[in-house]
């Protein structure tokens, strides 16, 4: 029942997962950090760093992939007449969920996209991350069964839908106007990393083209890493899951071909081995994504098609990255940050509060 939209068919979602499975590892090959060809949470964190919202000097880069995701989705929505400006479904809750989704993801060191890419590159720690993600989404489905609902959005002004694409276009212009000056940590107003993952990036044009392509096909297919797992648990429907599985399998094959597959737990790139907190961090992120109705990628694509509530979730994630690094919540390869555990516990408490109190039997 795709209504003429190939990407909404079974083979459509499988081909989108496969395309991401090829392009993610390729971006790594061309310069993005290890097992981080694409990571929505990490890249938004790097953007927060580039803008000076946090000052962790190893993770500062205005990642063009994020802007391209939104703009690619925006273009697809315009072309297929799906651009629908809307907002007003509990925006402040979405902001808070975005903040804690980021805090949880940075305790694990990756969003669901990177969790799958890490797994596909042999990082055993990602098994616990994916397990935690599933556990968090499962808790979210219990709330849905109990009547949890963020309420309706309303149609709104065209400018409401345009703001996020405009913000992203503005950031992209900043990236192009103020490129990195070799050896300098700052280029006018933008911060750059001289070492660490923030110093590793693919050529801008390549990041942009791949990002636009993924944004376009993800908008058409409604690709969502959280929805993939949620729909299996909640409805026993495997449609979106086929996309996620295809991403994992294809990324695994591409990593082997490119020599990027290194199985093990120890010394995995930009990862730590504290299993419990890999699990718990992702559990928090999974719960927050479930309560907000989409994985961090999906939130970008929705923001591109005019969803103001998803735009607020994205802004929440970027602000959350600021808190994560300023408050010592984010992990490093050495392990969890000094206050990471507190961050996860507080985040879970906030999500439970939201899930338990926002119920409406009949809307």
């Amino acid at each position, binding site marked *: *029942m*795709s*209504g003429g*939209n190939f990407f*909404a068919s079974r083979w459509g979602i499988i081909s989108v997962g496969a395309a991401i499975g090829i392009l993610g590892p390729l971006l790594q090959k061309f310069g993005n950090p290890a097992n981080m060809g694409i990571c929505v949470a990490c890249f938004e964190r790097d953007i927060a760093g580039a803008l000076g919202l946090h000052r962790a000097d190893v993770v500062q880069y205005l990642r063009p992939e994020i802007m391209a995701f939104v703009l690619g989705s925006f273009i697809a929505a315009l072309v*297929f007449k*799906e651009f*629908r400006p*809307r907002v007003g*479904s509990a925006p402040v809750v979405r902001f808070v969920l975005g903040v804690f989704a980021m805090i949880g993801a940075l305790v694990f060191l990756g969003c669901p996209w990177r969790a799958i890419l890490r797994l596909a590159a042999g990082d055993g720690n990602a098994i616990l991350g994916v397990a935690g993600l599933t556990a968090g989404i499962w808790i979210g489905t219990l709330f*849905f069964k109990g009547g949890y*609902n*963020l309420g*309706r*959005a*309303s*149609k709104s002004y065209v400018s409401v839908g345009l703001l996020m694409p405009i913000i992203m276009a503005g950031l992209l212009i900043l990236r192009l106007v103020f490129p990195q000056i070799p050896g300098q940590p700052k280029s006018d107003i933008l911060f750059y990393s001289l070492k660490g993952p923030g110093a590793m990036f693919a050529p801008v044009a390549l990041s942009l083209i791949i990002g636009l392509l993924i944004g376009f096909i993800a908008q058409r297919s*409604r690709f*969502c890493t959280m*929805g993939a797992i*949620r*729909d299996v648990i*909640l*409805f026993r*429907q495997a*449609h979106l899951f086929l996309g996620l599985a295809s991403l994992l399998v294809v990324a695994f094959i591409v990593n082997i071909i490119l020599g990027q597959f290194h199985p093990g737990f120890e010394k995995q790139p930009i990862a730590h081995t504290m299993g419990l907190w890999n699990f718990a961090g992702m559990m928090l992120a999974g719960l927050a994504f479930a309560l907000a*109705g*989409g994985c961090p990628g999906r939130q970008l694509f929705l923001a591109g098609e005019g*969803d103001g*509530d998803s735009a607020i979730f994205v802004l929440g994630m970027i602000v959350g990255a600021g808190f994560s690094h300023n408050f010592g919540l984010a992990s490093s390869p050495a392990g969890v940050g000094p206050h990471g555990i507190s961050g996860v516990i507080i985040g879970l408490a906030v999500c439970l509060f939201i899930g338990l109190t926002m119920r409406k039997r009949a*809307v």
Partner: protein
Amino acid sequence: MKMAVTLDARGLGCPQPVLMTLGEIKKLQRGEMEVLVDTDTSKENVSRAAVSQGWEVEKILEEGEGYRIRIKKP
């Protein structure tokens, strides 16, 4: 003809439209109903969910800013 059951899922994000549809399908077992949605994503998801339960998508009408999906199981 006016439908006995019309679900209004407009303005609701994932997974609400599908949850509402599946809940009603479970209640009715068979018959006819209409679901109002306002995004293409919801249109696809509701149709897919109905088909997965052995229901048939009879008609999808464009209505206002969204769609009226008529599903049935005789």
